[in-house]
């Protein structure tokens, strides 16, 4: 769990990551900032306390199924030294290993090539099933979006996870409201409960709630679902819950204003 000081340190780190993300998006005129910001607390916890703190480090895998939030993943992996500064600065360049969506063939820290929504969770089911067949320890973590949950393959995968009792699988949903403009998903927790998952609802920007939900995963006998209520664009006032910033890139002036806002926090 996080004490007051570690939360303060984490929030400072996340603000620095937000600045990196906004700067890269401005420079490269690419990236999905809103979705990257909504998952930053979750990614920070996963890479600081979940995957790295496990004894069998190499056996845990994290799949970012909502691949458009790649810039958030790259920034966090850069903070934890899995992606170099030079690699991060090359974001979306012609020969970069880090594109607008993650590609497993381009960088060793990226588990799956995602971008087309609805692929990451069934791939994660295959990875979790593979662990059972290979009699390996470790867990598979997969982060999906609420809009992504429109895809039938998500529910096909949920059915399979339950059928095969994949207690080594954790699915996290970034409930940032992206899906609301199309199909309202209703009570997602109830849906995953009915599919046989152990479900927890957390504030996706509260590190202690996130930590508590992840902490119980390894003691379960069924697949785990964490519904993380988040704010799209979290941390920058003009972006919060503003769909305009789903795939918009800041101008120099907007970047300067955002820097000012974040640095004043």
């Amino acid at each position: 769990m996080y004490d007051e000081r570690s939360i303060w340190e984490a929030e400072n780190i996340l603000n620095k990551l937000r600045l990196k993300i906004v700067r890269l998006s401005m420079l490269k005129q690419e990236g999905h900032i809103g979705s990257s910001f909504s998952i930053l607390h979750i990614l920070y916890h996963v890479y600081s306390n979940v995957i790295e703190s496990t004894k069998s480090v190499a056996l845990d895998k994290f799949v970012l199924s909502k691949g458009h939030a790649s810039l958030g993943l790259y920034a966090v992996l850069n903070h934890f030294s899995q992606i170099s500064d030079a690699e991060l600065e090359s974001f979306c360049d012609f020969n970069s290993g880090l594109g607008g969506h993650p590609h497993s063939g381009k960088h060793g820290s990226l588990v799956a090539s995602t971008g087309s929504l609805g692929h990451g969770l069934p791939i994660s089911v295959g990875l979790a099933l593979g662990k059972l067949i290979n009699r390996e320890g470790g867990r598979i973590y997969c982060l999906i979006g609420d809009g992504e949950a429109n895809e039938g393959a998500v529910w096909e995968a949920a059915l399979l996870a339950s059928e095969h009792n994949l207690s080594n699988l954790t699915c996290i949903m970034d409930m940032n409201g992206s899906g609301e403009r199309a199909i309202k998903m209703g009570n997602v927790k109830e849906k995953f409960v009915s599919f046989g998952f152990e479900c927890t609802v957390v504030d996706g920007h509260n590190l202690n709630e996130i930590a508590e939900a992840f902490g119980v995963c390894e003691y379960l006998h069924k697949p785990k679902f964490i519904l993380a209520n988040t704010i799209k664009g979290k941390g920058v006032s003009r972006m919060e819950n503003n769909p305009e910033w789903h795939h918009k890139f800041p101008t120099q002036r907007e970047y300067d204003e955002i820097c000012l806002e974040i640095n004043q926090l």
Partner: protein
Amino acid sequence: MRKQFVSTTVDIFEKDPSTVLLLGDIGVHGFKRLIDGCPERAMNIGILEQATISVAAGLSMSGLLPFVHTIAPFLVERALEQIKVDFGYQKLRGNLISVGASYDYAALGCTHHCPSDIAILQTIPNVQILVPGSSEELDFQLRNNYNNDHLTYYRLSEAQNNISFTVQDNLATIVKRGSRGVIMVVGPFLSRVLSAAADMDVTIIYYNQITPFDGDTLFQLLDHSSKLVAVMPFYESTLTHSIHKAIKGKASLLGTIGVPLEFSENYGSVEEHDAKFGLDEHGIRLRLQSMFSLR
């Protein structure tokens, strides 16, 4: 060919613990012994083809060798993006084995037909495409390719040839030599082409692997006066690009004989569909005579 698929796969599974079988609620009875004896690695995964392909990709990423088996349109067309992104883009290895071919389920209608499978899969780089012409060829191809470094597609069909060619690397085979032209024939159509062209002075070259396409054997066979006809058990336009790329303008491609680009809204039998499309022995003979101006 389906019985051979079961017996060869069971044999491979008993010897190689890295293999995993995912059945799309098809062939379950045939694999009952395997499913009962090894439920961890052999399962009826259900009727959810998109997730099944992605799950197979996850298994492949875990170092396992997935075999996915169901009816061709559901395997190839419904789950195409999963095949393209999860296997093709990520360069994963695995095995897709379809049944039904172009219209083996003739009476069930177009939802169960798939004359497009080879044309579609050709658009995904690095997928090996095999069209065995007999059970013996299927056995050979499965044993020699299931653990290679890429995704391999095996197209099972009810039609079979009465001769088999098991050639290393699945290269093309020159079955007969003649001087009036060259017939290139694919998979289970070989026997009917051999019969249809029995009295024709033509060379016949046989393919049971579509990609990688053995263009060299075809190119070496041709000279600048050669006339070529291609006969295939799927959409008639499927191999045009591969042939043109292989022959490099050296010969004339007179035409292709295969399934026309249309929905067949008839039912009945495979034989009735073959007759309708001019793909039975009689129909093929008439078209070969016409193309080679032999009448």
